[in-house]
């Protein structure tokens, strides 16, 4: 028997109405994590004592009638690359295994100010580099729908935990699909806001011009709730936008009637799995049935987006990761022979193979003599991709397609060939290159029972339109409400071999 609220919105309301307490909400979140994490290994650290103490403080305020924030008592987790004063902020890398942040990321500080309570940090591909969470320096996270399969990545821990629990906010980060692709693989709703909507202050940078914090939830409505709390200009991040932060939850009610949806043929290249294509086509038909107007559009340069993404992200990463040099913070080898030895061995021992590969690629493409042929060319492609979207968005309000060309794949399958792993990002990187808001929401499962994600892009700063489309779809479908059999909130958690409908109470 459990008191878990089905959604974060519902939990928030129950705490407000004094139907439950912050302490019981947090205790329930901790219990769920304890119940599932042995099977999925989604979590790196749990902050039991700190979380219960914070919840108790909120309950005291609630009891004495003091003002509490709009998310009072809501438990939340953050990815290992988001700075928190609790525990370590390792980006799942050996080089930062012992790194303790002296400050909270702005997104974390805002959630705390809203009354939310940090309960855990979630596993990821080291520094966000990967699409399977197999690149974590610490452990491999498993897909709750099929533990032999990857949860996607790099926010694989957040996606897996989001799928297997309920009543929590999960913050991830998305550089080339790192929220949307694992959301798609784990059957949850993952939203990457417009670049600049959410402050990056305290997000350990992978590729600064692409990184964006967002949430992985059971529904678009919960994504909207989380976004409302973390969005807005931040004096600590010069790239944050000073756009108004509307009540994203209230705007969901507007529905999709009259919205024009573009379906680009370039989002269905040869590599897209037939089942993925079918399910996405059915989902588009559903949106049409709900009143949206669907038309075919073309984004001709999207086919070059992935190589451009690999170069731009690697270039920025090679510079962003230079600070992990063994001198200032992070791992330092003992008894270095000299300065060069200190640098070389601290980094050689501290970084994993994929991170080193990207640093090498990035260093190469920025080098004198190669800059024009690679980095500059990639920036030109980036402009073309952005212009493609601008042109299309003159005629449509949203662009939809699959999130990933394939469903979750078996652990180990793509680790021997980085190009095979990079290929799964092909449909998610365009949104990062163009800085657009994009969401992945479940639109069914393969015959094998693996979730498939539908991706929706919107115009810059029209995060509300993207969330609205997703919410409208979810209000008339139940794909997002399905949960894997190991999910923690069910009293019969261990029972059943296939998915079960997730109760909406």
């Amino acid at each position, binding site marked *: 028997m459990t008191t878990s609220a089905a959604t974060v919105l519902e939990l928030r309301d129950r705490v407000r109405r004094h139907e439950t307490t912050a302490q019981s909400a947090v205790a329930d979140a901790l219990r769920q994590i304890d119940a599932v994490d042995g099977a999925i290994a989604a979590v790196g650290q749990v902050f039991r004592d700190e979380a219960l103490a914070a919840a108790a403080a909120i309950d005291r305020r609630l009891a004495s009638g003091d003002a509490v924030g709009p998310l009072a008592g809501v438990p939340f987790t953050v990815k290992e*690359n*988001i*700075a928190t004063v609790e525990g370590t*902020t390792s*980006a799942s890398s050996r080089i*930062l295994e012992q*790194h303790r*942040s*002296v*400050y909270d*990321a702005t997104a974390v500080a805002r959630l705390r100010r809203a009354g939310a309570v940090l309960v855990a940090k979630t596993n990821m591909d080291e520094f966000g580099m990967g699409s399977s969470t197999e690149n974590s320096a610490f452990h491999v996270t498993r897909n709750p729908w099929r533990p032999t399969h990857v949860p996607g990545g790099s926010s694989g821990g957040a996606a897996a935990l989001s799928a297997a629990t309920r009543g929590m906010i999960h913050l991830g980060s998305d550089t080339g699909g790192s929220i949307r692709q694992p959301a798609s693989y784990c059957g949850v709703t993952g939203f990457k806001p417009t670049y600049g909507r959410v402050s*990056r*202050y*305290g*997000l*350990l*940078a992978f*590729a*600064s*011009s692409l990184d964006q914090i967002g949430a992985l939830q059971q529904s678009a409505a919960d994504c909207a709730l989380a976004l409302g709390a973390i969005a807005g200009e931040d*004096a*600590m*991040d*010069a*790239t944050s936008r000073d756009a108004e932060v509307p009540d994203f939850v209230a705007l969901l009610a507007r529905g999709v009637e009259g919205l024009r949806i573009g379906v680009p043929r370039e989002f269905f290249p040869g590599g897209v799995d037939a089942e993925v294509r079918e399910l996405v086509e059915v989902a588009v038909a559903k949106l049409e049935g709900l009143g949206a107007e669907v038309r075919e559009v073309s984004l001709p340069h999207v086919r070059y987006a992935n190589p451009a993404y690999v170069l731009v992200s690697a*270039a*920025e990463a*090679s*510079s962003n*990761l*230079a*600070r*992990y*040099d063994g*001198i*200032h*913070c*992070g791992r330092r080898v003992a008894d270095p022979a000299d*300065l060069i030895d200190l*640098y070389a061995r601290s980094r050689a021992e501290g970084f994993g193979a994929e991170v080193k590969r990207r640093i090498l690629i990035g*260093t190469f493409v*920025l*080098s*004198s003599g190669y*800059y024009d042929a690679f*980095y500059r060319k990639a920036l030109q492609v980036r402009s073309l991709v952005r212009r493609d979207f601008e042109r299309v968005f003159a005629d449509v309000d949203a662009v939809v397609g699959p999130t990933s060309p394939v469903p979750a794949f078996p652990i180990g399958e793509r680790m021997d060939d980085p190009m095979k792993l990079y290929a799964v990002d092909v449909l998610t990187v365009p949104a990062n290159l163009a800085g657009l808001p994009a969401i992945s929401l479940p639109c069914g499962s393969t015959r094998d029972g693996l979730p498939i994600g539908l991706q929706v892009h919107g115009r810059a700063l029209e995060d509300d339109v993207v969330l609205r489309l997703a919410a409208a779809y979810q209000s008339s479908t139940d794909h997002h409400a399905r949960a894997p059999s190991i999910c923690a909130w069910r009293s019969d958690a261990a029972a059943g071999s296939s998915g079960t409908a997730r109760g909406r109470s």
Partner: protein
Amino acid sequence: MAATNVVGGRGDSHAGSGWEAVIGLEVHAQLATRTKMFCRCETRFGAPPNTLVCPVCLALPGALPTINREAVRHALRVVLACGCDVARTTKFDRKNYFYPDLPKGYQISQFDQPIGDGGRVRYELDGEQRSVRLARIHMEEDAGKNTHVAGRQVSQVDLNRAGVPLLEIVTEPDIATPADAVAFFGALRLMLLYLGVCDGNMEEGSLRCDCNVSIRPRGSLELGTRAEIKNLNSFTFIENALHYEIVRQVRVRESGGAIVQETRLYDPDRDETRSMRGKEEAHDYRYFPEPDLPPLSFSADEIEAARASVPEMPLERAARLVGELGLSEYHAGVLVQDHEASRFLDRCLELWPEPKPLANWLINDLKEELNHRKAGLVALGLDPQRFVDLVRAVDDGIVSKQQGRELVRKLFDGDAPIAALIRELGFEQIRDDSVLRAQIESVLADHPGPVDDVRAGKKNSINFLVGQVMRASKGKADAARVAQLIEEILGR
């Protein structure tokens, strides 16, 4: 010896030889902002190590830079004062290299879109107006400071300086002699002081420069291979290092050798430059646009506001002091070189438009008193009104010159009004001729000899008699008036 004939004066190390030097400077000026370039830490000098730091300038994981607008406004004013083209859009770039004093592993600088392009700095040398063209002006951040602990295998890093805003001003290779380099550098320093954008303190490293030097056959238009001398932080070091380097290069060439492109360090103790690293070790800095900082552009209003805030520059000022205010070239020159005194004079002139007496007292007696107190006008907070009152008291004959000098010495002991000081010291002059006459008559009666001398036409004796009257009046008599009266009385 071939080298001896190339050594001329320090002004022209190669005078009389077949070679001429080509010199370009890269000047680094610390912008006088309260906080750092990309965070809100203070820029104070001399704080205990690693106390003026935060997650941003420590480069802690996840921290991001934000732009100090004050630093940008300072930079913009320098750009306008030097007549550079203001960039329509300027952006920051990352200069990537590893060094322990560089916590991010890159320096935020400007590469291909600096805030200012071109421009010119004028200076005077040997009474002649000359100028140096600028290549560019860009903004960047300073690094920290490494200290090697003597006797131990330990190095320490202080990041108080890390992120301090710098302006780099790069000249074209227009400079021909060490003397020109020093004169240019001095003129530029003065401009920065006038603009209030840099404190010009070279000992604390607020202003320093790198010198690029090459030589070529006199009259040739080609540029030779250059050496770069790093981090010179005094006028003397610049002059000596350039002199040494030019002579060295001439010797190398005349003995059949070739100059190698390299970075050299000047050692003031041995007065020589030494190779630090060669071209083959040159860094590939892998510059690319700083993705954490959006590009900046300036509206016409912003540029006009910045232009309006550019004060009169030293050379214009000197011309005006001579031409409009009638000061001597000497007074004007001294005043222009002393920026504090110069600004102080402006404030005084607003209160009392008599430049000559003010400049005279400022340059001579006030300056002497400041030297004596080893402090500046700004530090001592002198109110211009009190200084004007003092100079006027002398000018109006209320006190004597000598008494004026004593007042200057009392000027910084409190903030009493000058009138009160004069009363307190009993300095008011006797302005009543009948009182003066009585004192004179008494002195004349006591000194019949000198009186006879005066009558006989010995002018010096008048001075003696005036002195006696001054003594009798305890200095309260106006010496000039006393002399007039004695002449009257003695019927001359």
